[in-house]
């Protein structure tokens, strides 16, 4: 019974690790350990992905991430990074409104000279 479970978990493994029980057992145990560790890492990775996206979206409007978040905290806006990254991707006008609020509350950056396409935004 246990062997069947091991082989079921070993689907897609490379070489003998999906067919031979001795090798499969080792690889499956390693895979389960990795998944335990990575369930914790996934939360960190997602947060840093959201921060990258917020940074990119805010820099389009001339504010970097640190000043943007500081301005939001000062204005008592409690949107978390997950939602902010979704807004920066899918709701550009709302995100620009947030950037304007943040810049008004904490003017840390000079507005850069806009060239080309960014003059339209």
């Amino acid at each position, binding site marked *: 019974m246990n062997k069947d479970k091991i082989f079921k978990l070993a689907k897609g493994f490379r070489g003998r690790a999906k067919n031979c029980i001795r090798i499969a057992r080792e690889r499956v*145990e390693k895979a*389960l*350990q990795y*998944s*335990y560790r990575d*369930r914790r890492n*996934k939360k960190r990775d997602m947060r840093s992905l959201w921060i990258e996206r917020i940074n990119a979206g805010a820099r389009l409007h001339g504010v970097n991430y640190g000043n943007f978040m500081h301005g939001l905290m000062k*204005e*008592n*806006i*409690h*949107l*978390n990074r*997950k*939602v902010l990254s*979704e*807004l920066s991707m899918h*709701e550009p*006008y*709302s995100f620009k*409104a*947030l950037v*304007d*609020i943040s810049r008004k509350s904490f003017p840390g950056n000079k507005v850069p000279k806009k060239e080309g396409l960014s003059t339209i935004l």
Partner: protein
Amino acid sequence: MACRRCLASLTRHFRSRFLSNAALENPQTLIFRALGPRTLRGPLLNSFDSPAGFGGIDSLQFNITRHLSSRPTNPSDEEEEDEEEGGESCEEEGGEAQASRCVVQRGKSEEEKIKEASEIGYKVTGPLDPSENPFKPYEPVFAVVQIGSHQFKVSNGDSIFTERLKFCEVNDKLILNRVLMLGSKTQTIIGRPVLPDAAVNAVVEEHALDAKVIIFKKKRRKNYRRTKGHRQELTKLRITDIQGIGKSANVATNA
């Protein structure tokens, strides 16, 4: 795992794009066809077969298993879900219809305390669905809502997986009153931190268990190995309405 939540958010994006392009009567025609011979839960579960098609079968299966996994409702209670606390003496209760029940009962305290506990999760349980149809076609309005410690960007017709919400059954209407932001095509309203007049209506679609994760711990060369399975309890909500923003306003202002 978050796999069900990820799938739900993926189909949500595709569905919102699909339904906005396609004819808006599609959900309603499906609902009207389904209302006739089916039970009360039928139209709610069968009307939202997403284009990916994953909602129908799963929801039917969970419909069957719900009878096994959810706690049994107390048939001697009234229509609302009042639960009296075990160990409370009869003197504390109102004594109107409950004076005869001095026996120890399971569950939390009275109606007011249930509502207070609901406020912690930022929802207010409205009345049950009396075979009306609260679902509307898609509108291009979004709200950012907070439930517990999780925030969601929702729109009309979305489905959300949250942590198991305690005081509601399937087909309950909920009002999520912790709304952090509203947006439409012409307006954006940002709360600091909450918008007091905004509300998001939702219906509980199912109480489900997440996919099983295996918790495996091992210390090498020390003869230590532990295996455990875990299924997180979730609630699936379907967002029906967003209130607090003018949806077809032509004024371009930012609040």
